[in-house]
């Protein structure tokens, strides 16, 4: 895949924005505003602190968050067991006509996919962080490291996206998590049947069928597994607590937008009717036992990725080496500037 140039360069001022050239649509890369803020002035204390961080990192042998996440097999198993319990409880609640019972089929598929992958979210979280957002962060860092280590296409394949599909779809991590976090945040007041129905209709209008399939497909990928799963699990719990119709409507609109995004994102996938993905979708819409199996598969996939990264990457070493070098470059620049001033 060829590089796509987008103007995210240095700007003046800590959070300055440079006006770009004239384009036809917002977000056009050509001439768009630069986005990456310049760093603030760094004092000596910060440099010392960074050295201390580097030293502590070496001493502790803790190279990175994802490496640490891979370290505790027992904690992960316990977390998965706990999540499975929650999963089964959620499935029971669903079967008894809870919130999810009112959703359209595609939305239900999306929800179940989220439930399935919740266990994987906890797998990562056990590395010292908690919550779905932390899982998103760790997964993102791991995904980044893997992509630089193995290449984009290969890492996507590694995460369960076929080579045919790799060019069409990303993992959906952030989108899935976004949709779920919206519900988690607002979900305390979202439990009415009307809300559920509205959610189904809105999502359907936004292409929920595609979203459901996309979620099923993307559930095989690390990102969605981690980000979306925990979020939906949290949402399930949240929606069972409150009863505010207005909040439900809010949630509906925002979730529908997010779901629509997922569906649109996976437009290419929808065009590719591969049997393996259909099979995966079926798997993900099965009962809690199937969900358990799927979550284990995803956990293994995640574990393999983490192990690979831990053994092969050297990402932390690279970061440290780069940091040292950057510090040296910066120091020389400051010295040169001082000399000029003198």
């Amino acid at each position, binding site marked *: 895949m060829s*590089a796509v140039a987008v103007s995210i360069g240095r700007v003046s001022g800590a959070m300055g924005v440079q006006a770009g050239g004239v384009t036809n649509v*917002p977000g056009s890369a050509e001439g768009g505003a630069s986005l*990456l803020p310049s760093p603030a002035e760094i004092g000596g204390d910060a440099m010392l602190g960074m050295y201390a961080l580097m030293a502590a990192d070496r001493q502790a042998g803790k190279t990175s968050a994802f490496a640490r996440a891979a370290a505790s097999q027992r904690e992960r198993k316990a977390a998965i067991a706990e999540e499975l319990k929650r999963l089964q409880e959620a499935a029971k609640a669903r079967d008894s006509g809870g919130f999810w019972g009112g959703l359209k089929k595609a939305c239900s598929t999306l929800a179940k996919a989220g439930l399935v992958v919740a266990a994987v979210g906890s797998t990562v979280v056990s590395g010292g962080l908690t919550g779905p*957002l932390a899982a998103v962060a760790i997964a*993102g860092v791991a995904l980044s490291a893997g*992509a630089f280590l193995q290449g*984009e296409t290969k890492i996507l394949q590694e995460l369960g996206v076929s080579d045919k599909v790799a060019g069409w779809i990303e993992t959906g991590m952030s989108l899935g998590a976004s949709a779920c976090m919206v519900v988690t945040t607002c979900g305390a007041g979202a439990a009415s049947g009307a809300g559920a129905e509205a959610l189904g209709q809105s999502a359907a209008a936004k292409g929920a069928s595609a979203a459901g399939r996309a979620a099923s497909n993307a559930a095989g990928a690390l990102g969605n597994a981690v980000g979306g799963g925990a979020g939906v699990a949290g949402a399930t719990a949240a929606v069972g607590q409150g009863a505010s119709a207005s909040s439900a409507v809010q949630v509906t609109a925002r979730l529908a937008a997010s779901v629509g995004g997922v569906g649109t994102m996976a437009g290419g996938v929808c065009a590719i009717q591969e049997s393996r993905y259909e099979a995966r979708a079926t798997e993900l819409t099965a009962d809690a036992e199937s969900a358990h199996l799927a979550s284990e598969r995803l956990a293994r996939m995640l574990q393999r990725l983490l192990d690979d990264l831990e053994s092969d990457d050297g990402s932390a070493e690279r970061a440290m080496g780069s940091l040292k070098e*950057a510090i040296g470059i910066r120091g020389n620049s400051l010295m040169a500037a001082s000399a000029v001033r003198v």
Partner: protein
Amino acid sequence: MNPLQPAVETGAEVVEAIYAAGHLLHARERWADAAAVFRLMLTASPTDERGWLALGDCHQKAGQALIALEMYGAGTVAAAPAARCRLARVRLLRELGRDDEADAWWDELLEIAEQSDDETTRGLVAAESECVS
């Protein structure tokens, strides 16, 4: 408990120093090195939008557009509302020819800007909007 409790405890100044180092490497177009530094930064401060934005840009410059999309997207979740990450995602989606998605993300960004009191966010969106006219 803070769900985004940093994996590596550091002060804000240290995070800033790491960002500065990554930024310097980024400016020298050493994408892989810069990315490694930004990843380190994100383990220390996952809610810092700049880290996700810069990491995404490194991937983008390295020709990994789909991974870049993920990084921008992760930024919108971990560092919400993350207007810059959203805008970067809009631009990249546009480049990839995924205009419908770009439109949806742009609409969300407009809504965020309208509801935001943050001048930077509003300015960012206003500057981008001017590109249309």
